């Protein structure tokens, strides 16, 4: 049983939230929206964290900003647009599908298709090669027999 808890502690990681109590909105529904937005916004200082997870002062400022805009009645998109206008698409942890990210989004699918196609033709090709192997010519047959005889 103890082992179970140990393993659970090891493998079930819960993302830590950096938001401090004084930042939180009183309305739980608005706060839930704010937290959802936080998780999609990159902390521009620490870069690999969302602002929900980061302790950086700038992340805190952005969390407060998100809550301020939500309290003022902004929709989720409006809040995101407000921040993207200042920091660019870079601030989004999930890049939008558009011209310059098409390669990014299409590449995994394209790679999978190419791999599948490659595999398919490779396997089919090898089957064909076996099926299509012509019988040995008389000369070759003689050579084979001679070599086999020499080797005893």
């Amino acid at each position, binding site marked *: 049983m103890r082992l179970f808890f140990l393993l659970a502690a090891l493998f079930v990681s819960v993302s830590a939230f950096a938001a401090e109590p004084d930042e939180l909105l009183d309305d739980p529904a608005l706060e839930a929206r704010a937290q959802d937005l936080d998780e999609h916004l990159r902390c521009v200082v620490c870069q690999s964290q969302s602002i929900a997870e980061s302790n950086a002062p700038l992340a805190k400022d952005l969390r407060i900003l998100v809550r301020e805009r939500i309290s003022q009645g902004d929709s989720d998109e409006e809040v995101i647009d407000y921040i993207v206008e200042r920091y660019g698409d870079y601030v989004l942890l999930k890049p939008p599908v558009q011209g310059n990210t098409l390669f990014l989004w299409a590449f995994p699918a394209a790679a999978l298709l190419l791999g599948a196609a490659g595999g398919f033709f490779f396997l089919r*090709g090898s089957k064909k090669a076996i099926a299509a192997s012509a019988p040995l010519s008389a000369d070759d047959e003689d050579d084979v027999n001679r070599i086999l005889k020499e080797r005893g």
Partner: protein
Amino acid sequence: MRRIVFIFPILVFAVVGAFFAYGLTRDPSNIPSQLIDRPLPEFDLPAIQGMEKGLSTEDIKGEVALVNVFGSWCVSCHVEHPVLMELSKAGAVPIYGLNWKDEPGAGKAWLDRYGNPYDLVGDDQAGRVAIDLGVTGAPETFVVDREGRVRFKVTGPITEQYWTNTLAPLIEELRRS
């Protein structure tokens, strides 16, 4: 046909490898500014504690100028500061300071200790103007043209070499146009 099966993965590897190699040469902290060729966002900041005048967008218009984001807590700002002092002494370009998220009084104490290269300093304790500017860290410096448009952003400290090679020619060019 057979050969393609062997060459193709190598080709794919080369292409992907080239992308990654290119990625390694780029500085991830250098996030492109959204403000380039756009007017400096409107702001009107109070003076930092111990100084008289604040800083507003209006103050910055009229001449090619630098807007420098700094804080007494910022280590790289210490590195950059002597260069700004030189520029200000030489009268090279007006420099405006944005004291970002500093304790009240800390900005002034810092300027008293190391010298004040700024024509005007605004106090951005809440960090809201910095967010409007898309600031990701300090120091950051914006080159603003005569019409008050942002033309260039420097992420990290301005070194003497960077000034001579990049900023000075750029400012020359902006003055001429």
